[in-house]
């Protein structure tokens, strides 16, 4: 086994030596390229690439068309490292929003971005997960404990808080960013 491999490497090195070292498309790039072609964004999501040549860093915008967060426009940054898909993409919400699963720094509590990430999952699975957070905020595993408490104990109050925060108002002393379209 090892022997085949070392022969293979020698062959590869010989080829490189012949042609001079040219940069190769990385494994992460290859995988992201494949994942991007499989994204289904629909009408409620879009991507934006600050530098189109760098597909490992981009933003995703979600505009929920139903649920409590309807009418909002939410931005997420995606930062993918060279160890992707072995490491999950790093995803953050770039706005300060009132959501039980997103904290004030924009960290997101989504299982497939952490403990349940598997290399077989693709970027589409991640964006579907994000979309779902706005349709079904989840009180059982909170990052914003107060919001989670509101959601658990007073669903109507929670809805009002969501609306007010989306308009740039403050909830319990915290001022939130205006995210309405």
């Amino acid at each position: 086994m090892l022997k085949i491999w070392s022969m293979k490497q020698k062959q590869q090195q010989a080829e490189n030596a012949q042609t001079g070292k040219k940069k190769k498309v990385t494994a992460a790039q290859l995988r992201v390229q494949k994942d991007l072609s499989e994204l289904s964004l629909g009408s409620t999501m879009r991507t934006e690439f600050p530098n189109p040549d760098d597909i490992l860093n981009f933003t995703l915008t979600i505009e929920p068309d139903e649920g409590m967060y309807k009418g909002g426009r939410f931005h997420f940054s995606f930062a993918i490292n060279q160890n992707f898909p072995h490491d999950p993409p790093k995803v953050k919400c770039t706005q300060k929003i009132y959501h039980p699963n997103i904290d004030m720094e924009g960290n997101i509590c989504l299982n497939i971005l952490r403990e349940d990430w598997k290399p077989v999952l693709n970027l589409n699975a991640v964006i579907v997960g994000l979309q779902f957070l706005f349709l079904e905020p989840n009180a059982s595993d909170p990052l914003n404990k107060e919001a989670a408490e509101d959601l658990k104990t007073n669903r109507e109050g929670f809805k009002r808080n969501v609306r007010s925060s989306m308009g740039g108002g403050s909830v319990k002393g915290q001022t939130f960013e205006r995210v309405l379209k």
Partner: protein
Amino acid sequence: MEMDGADPNGVPGEVDRKRWTYLDRILNRPGPFTDEEWVPGEPNIESLERMKILVIGAGGLGCEILKNLALSGFKDIHVIDMDTIDVSNLNRQFLFRQADVGRPKAEVAAQFVEKRVRGVKITPFCGKIQDKDEDYYMQFGMVICGLDSIEARRWINATLVGMVDNDDADTLKPLIDGGTEGFKGQARHCIEWAHIIAWEEERKDDTLDTDDPEHITWLYQKALARANEFNIPGVTYSMTQGVVKNIIPAIASTNAIVAAACCNEAFKIVTSTNPPLGFPGTNNYMMYTGDDSVYTYTFEHSKKDDCPVCGNLAKNLEVDPNMTLEEFIASLAEKPEAQLKKPTLRTEEKSLYYQSPPSLEEQTRPNLKKKFSELVSDGEQLAVSDPAFQIVFKFKLVFKK
């Protein structure tokens, strides 16, 4: 369960390595063709026992392969097959009995071999190869294929080649492929490692009438079309002839021959007890035909230089630097072996053209009108993906002078 086979009351079972007396002689003694650096003994036994090997298919070939691997000292064998046992399988697939009809092939085959060869672990998976992802295939050190479907063979080949990461030795999975059906096996021309194929009949029940012109023409044209489709190098008249003959009377014995040849290669690769087929620059393909005496042809079946499936090994691709990206994309769609109809392309530095998502498409669209020379430099690597293919093809761009 018994530690001492000499115990007259004990069940004679696995006693040390007495069962492997003959195998161990090969593992413990160097031969005239073993590599000078080869270390006899324990390391070879360990390699065999540690090697996690996947057998694809538990049909006629697969049953033979499982049995052979178990008796070659492999201990951790996995088998994947989606079929259940049919009455018609009983004559050739010798691990199955009447009472097994209706049960999954992988499961029955695994149980049977485990029972006969104590100490071997065979893990069955009853399902399609496509049900499993790269992670599943990544766990194996080697894959032996005994499939009858060309689609499945292509899929597994592309998947394994697609997994190869040149910086990680563990991602390279030697594939040994046994085939017993005519020209179809030829499509696997781009696999790097050992291929073994035998000419064989498909018409066990339906007797081929050599005077039935329709039947023969059908076979002949099928073979020709196949050869053309894959632009197979070295297809000579006599090879085509061999396929059309295609009439060895004993399917079971042909399976035995092909499976044993495959497993012999697997054994050599894992133990290095003798040089296997498949080192670069050596033979990697063996063909067997038995209708007129016995004839084998063992040769180096070289990778096609522009084989898109071996994309991970970055095939050279000659391009005119004055060509626009748009023109290049049009030319990809015409490449018969690839047929990339909706390609997305990039180099390490640049996103050349993305079909999706829409924002990226819009941003990269202006590149379509640009010349190659403006976008990339000579010798750069190009990655091409297409929704029709599971893998991403890699090319090394060579500018036409």
